[in-house]
């Protein structure tokens, strides 16, 4: 069991499922097609659990479950995969969210379109998995771009009236970022040849490359630009509200919960290890953008009249926290940022899917159309409140642990910046509770009168998310046990140590 | 053996072929011009083969001929198809690529 190529299988299994679902004739019935898709996603989850059981804590190797096959020998490109703590956690997030999203979106699309929709989701899962396990920069880049294709169709075909425009905007932004990234990737490769005499895209080889600070700066700029579009940081964010606002809730969850994580993931996996000196030197820029994003996103969320746009802006704010933690260069900050990536995926799913249930019932995403929905859908109101509180980082939920550790880690190095960022939790309370107040309380509006409360299927789809969010809020340490070696490794790669305690006489 | 003359001849034929492509409107005549250009390059190949003293140039010329033959077949078929729908062999009439 131990020597199976788990990671390649995790990439291939959903892809096979996707092709199979594509191939099933529609005449067989939408329910069967959907069941096959869901089955594949559950199978993938099972495979992930098996793979996770092979993962060992406390080993010296950075990457585990590694595989390495030659791909394009002439350029030193290989199909090389492996996971460390961060990769494993992201894989877990993907494996959990996809079945949840499929189940939640069971009736979001018409029966004729269901097969293609579900197949595209599975395809996306495959590509995103490849991104998260690639330890070869070229392979990472390829899947970084390829995953846009299913996403483009998911936004452009299954959203509201503005979906096509939004999909094109999403694609153009991503492609611009990807193009700059490509330039960076090629440049790294060329420089690696100049320095060592042979070119390779292997991560470890590139991380040990002795790049000059000058070229590191340029490469940092290129990589950071691409990842900041994906993450997204203000002012490169404007595609996200459109994309999330125009797509169906399930797609928005995949987009924000998983796809955007590639940006912050890329920062930790490639940006910091490959360009450590430049990262430390240019961190203030990243931190400034991060704090800007936190407040900008939160303020825009308050000003939003559309639920999905609001949630998209909330996510921009949250990505600000993640980037803040990454560039604080403390163990707590980086571990917290990685934990944030996990918890943000969960809280996004909780809020988006629950709100999606409501929007599906009223066929409107305008906040003002919903009022007093509590009277007709008390259970759904509970889930929406849970989602809102989760995005507020209420203590006792996973998002609190994440946000607090990020702020704590930042505070240790940049107290003023962290203090300013902490003020963001007040603004967060305003947007989240105001959303709840405007949608759930008061006298029922016409739109919500007579709608049905949440169904059993919908509860089942959301329960794992809710359970995980609470469980990780009280028992986060298993996740930190997995993540801490990664943050220690990153700290070592950027050559930073945690600040000492301030007390007189040392620690 | 001075092959420069052959090269010059080849260039002249190529240029005349190019002018043919650019100024003649009859698709069939245009096609003949293209054939002429291909032949001009063939001549250059053969001349180079002679100059370099090996047969590779001749083999390439041979392949060019084969490809040209295939191309003529397809090209003429296309011209016939166009003629059938538009009742003309004028290349200017087939301007659907206009932006």
């Amino acid at each position, binding site marked *: 069991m131990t020597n199976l190529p788990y990671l390649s299988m995790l990439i291939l299994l959903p892809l096979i499922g996707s092709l199979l679902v594509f191939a099933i004739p529609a005449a067989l019935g939408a329910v069967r097609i959907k069941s096959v898709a869901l089955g594949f996603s559950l199978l993938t989850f099972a495979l992930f659990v098996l793979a996770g059981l092979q993962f060992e804590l406390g080993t010296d190797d950075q990457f585990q479950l590694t595989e390495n096959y030659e791909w394009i020998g002439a350029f030193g490109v290989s199909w090389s995969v492996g996971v460390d703590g961060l990769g494993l956690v992201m894989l877990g997030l993907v494996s959990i969210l996809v079945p949840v999203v499929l189940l939640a979106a069971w009736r979001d699309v018409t029966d004729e379109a269901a097969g293609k929709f579900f197949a595209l989701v599975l395809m996306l899962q495959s590509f995103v998995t490849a991104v998260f396990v690639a330890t070869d920069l070229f392979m990472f880049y390829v899947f970084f771009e390829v995953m846009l294709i299913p996403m483009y169709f998911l936004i452009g075909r299954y959203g509201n009236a503005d979906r096509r425009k939004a999909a094109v905007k999403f694609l153009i932004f991503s492609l611009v970022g990807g193009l700059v990234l490509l330039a960076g990737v090629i440049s790294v490769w060329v420089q690696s040849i100049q320095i060592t005499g042979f070119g390779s895209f292997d991560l470890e080889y590139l991380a040990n490359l002795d790049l000059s600070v000058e070229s590191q700066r340029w490469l940092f700029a290129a990589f950071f630009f691409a990842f900041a579009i994906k993450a997204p940081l203000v002012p490169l964010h404007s595609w996200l509200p459109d994309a999330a606002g125009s797509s169906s809730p399930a797609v928005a969850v995949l987009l924000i919960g998983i796809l955007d994580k590639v940006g912050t993931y890329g920062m930790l996996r490639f940006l910091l290890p490959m360009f450590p000196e430049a990262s430390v030197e240019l961190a203030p820029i990243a931190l400034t953008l991060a704090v800007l994003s936190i407040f900008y996103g939160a303020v825009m969320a308050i000003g939003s009249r559309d639920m999905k746009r609001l949630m998209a802006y909330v996510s921009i704010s949250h990505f600000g926290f993640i980037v803040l933690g990454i560039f604080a260069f403390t163990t707590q900050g980086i571990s917290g940022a990685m934990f944030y990536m996990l918890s943000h995926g969960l809280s996004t799913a909780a809020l988006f899917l629950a709100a999606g249930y409501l929007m599906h019932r009223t066929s409107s995403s305008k906040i003002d159309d919903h009022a007093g929905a509590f*009277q007709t859908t008390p259970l759904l109101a509970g889930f929406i409140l849970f989602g809102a509180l989760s995005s507020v980082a209420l203590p006792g939920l996973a998002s609190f*642990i994440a946000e607090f550790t990020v702020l704590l880690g930042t505070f*240790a190095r940049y107290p003023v910046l962290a203090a300013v960022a*902490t003020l963001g939790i007040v603004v967060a309370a305003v947007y989240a509770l105001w959303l709840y*107040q405007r949608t759930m309380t008061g006298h029922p509006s016409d739109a919500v009168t007579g709608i049905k409360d949440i169904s059993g299927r919908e509860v089942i789809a959301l329960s794992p998310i809710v359970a995980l969010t609470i469980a990780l809020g009280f028992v986060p340490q298993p996740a930190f046990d997995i993540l801490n070696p990664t943050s220690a490794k990153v700290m070592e790669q950027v050559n930073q140590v945690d600040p000492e305690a301030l007390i007189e006489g040392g620690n | 053996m001075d092959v420069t003359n052959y090269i010059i001849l080849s260039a002249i034929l190529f240029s005349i072929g190019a002018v043919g492509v650019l100024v003649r409107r009859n698709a069939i005549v245009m096609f003949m011009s293209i054939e002429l250009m291909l032949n001009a390059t063939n001549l250059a190949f053969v001349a180079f083969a002679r100059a370099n003293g090996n047969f590779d140039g001749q083999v390439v010329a041979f392949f060019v001929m084969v490809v040209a033959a295939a191309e003529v077949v397809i090209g003429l078929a296309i011209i016939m198809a166009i003629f059938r729908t538009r009742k003309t062999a004028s290349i200017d009439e087939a301007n659907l690529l206009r932006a």
Partner: protein
Amino acid sequence: MRYSFALEAISPSLTNQVATGSFANLWLLIALPLFGALVLLLGGNRTNSFGPLLAALMPIASFGFAVYLWLELLALPEELRSQNLILFEWINIGSFQVPFGLQLDPLSMSFVLLITGVGSLIHIYSLGYMDHDPGKRRFFGYLNLFVAAMLLLVLADNYLLLYVGWEGVGLASYLLIGYYQHKPSAAAAAKKAFVVNRVGDVGLSLAIMLMFVAFHTVTFAGISDKAEQGSATVLFLIGLFLLVGAAGKSAQVPLQSWLLDAMEGPTPVSALIHAATMVTAGVYLIVRSNSIYDLSVAAQNAVIVVGVVTLLAGAFIGMAKDDIKKALAASTMSQIGYMVLAAGLGPIGYVYAIMHLLTHGFFKAGMFLGAGSVMHAMNDEVDMRKFGALRAVMLITFGTFFVGYLAILGVPPFAGFYSKDLIIEAAFDRSIIAGIATLLGAGITAFYMSRLILMTFFSNKRWEDDAHPHESPATMTIPMILLAVGSVASGYLLTFNDSLKHWLAPVTGYKTPEPPIAIPVLIAMTLTTVAIGVAIAIRMYLRQADRVAPTNVSIFTKAARKDLYGDAINEAVFMRGGQKVVNGTTTVDNSVVEGSVRFIGRITLGLSKIIRATQTGYTRNYALAMLLGASLMLLLAAIVRL
């Protein structure tokens, strides 16, 4: 005897013991009400029938266990009375290590007894009060959730876990204030409470972060070990941040504005959360952080200033309120101001702060329940101007309320006399100004409480036509009676033989105050002030009160009616300002960010329009372009070779 002069000064002497025996089951205290909350909230409508009863049983069970643990604790020698139970490793990242640990020491024990005791009574009361409410299962679920969170707050052995309980009670408070979801005012009040509390949370968060940065620990034990090594600035800042947190939760100026609005919730909630327990969490936090405050006089001074301002502001607002619950809420604010002030006095005041907190828990909860009983009788009317002469129809309610009234006034031998007078003495010890303020506060309290009780139970009948007041059922009156008993006896019991001092001093330390004025003189001064307040009220309200509030009132009354313009300031500065920021950002996003994206798009479109002109569709044009390109490339090659 109120003082034992043998008790001069005690310094904190407890060290944590690993919990064994029955203390190892400490977690049950929290788990019981949490279990109740989970059953009721997850069980759905199936639990409608037995849910409320189950919910009421849970805090009672917790209370029983708490009493048992209390007796166990009493049996231990003084220095072993801090039991520390570490359940599991909570967070461990590098040097940031936080256990999921509970700590039971005399301070938290006092709170546990108060919370579970008063909590149980209010659960029982609610069985009667909420009897007709169709959604009461949810209500009881929230109540249980609150009790669990509050217990976690006081039992946590570190600041981060305290924070979890802190927010848990905030959440429960939010849910309960907004319990009447269909009322927009309730929803707005709930949100306001949460948001204002969040401002306080920022303070608490920053305090915890600073503690970690300074000391690399956030446990109470760790902080008190290392606090002495901290620099003055760090200690002051931690104290200040903690104060912000405490001000948010305890409705202290400038974060007081949410408490009066919070009265939108059902009355038992006001009694339990917004009078007896949650709002005192700030006092708990300050007393718990005594190791920080003892080392920073500047931080103590900040606490004192906040306490003084709040006690006066609350009393001032209380004078003008016609809404019975809001008047009581203003009074709560003021009384907590006393506690905070006392907590700011250091070892002199900690014990008194807690003592006042406990007695206040009894009499204020009792009065709130009384107010609830009145409202229950008057079709949920809260305007005192529509009450009057109720003492005859609601004898038990009036009796219990009157006991509470005497207690809050500080009439001997009721509970408030012991606790409040001690605070006044301690305040004089620190500063004359603070002392005078407390004295003044006592007088104003006497005035507005007399006004309240006169307008409600005495004076002329001003009822609405459809009002048929009647005494409340036993489930409601019994808790009121029990709380009244507490209001009478608690003060004496807590001071008898210096019991509370001996009990708490190992945690907080103690020092006897030495006010510049002789203590009997002070007592006389206090009682005189109170008597003056009562007299004015009787003169104004005993006979007759207007059915409609007069409008030609002084500027001070107007200010008090408007909560001293707290909301107006909030609205002008934060809401309007916030709105402007939101609008501004939205405009920037639309014009600058989106605008630049659109601008790039437009440039691209324009360029493509120009280039499109070259796409004539004529094959021969394309061929020409191709040939031109080939020629240029050749030319380039030729040039490069040259």
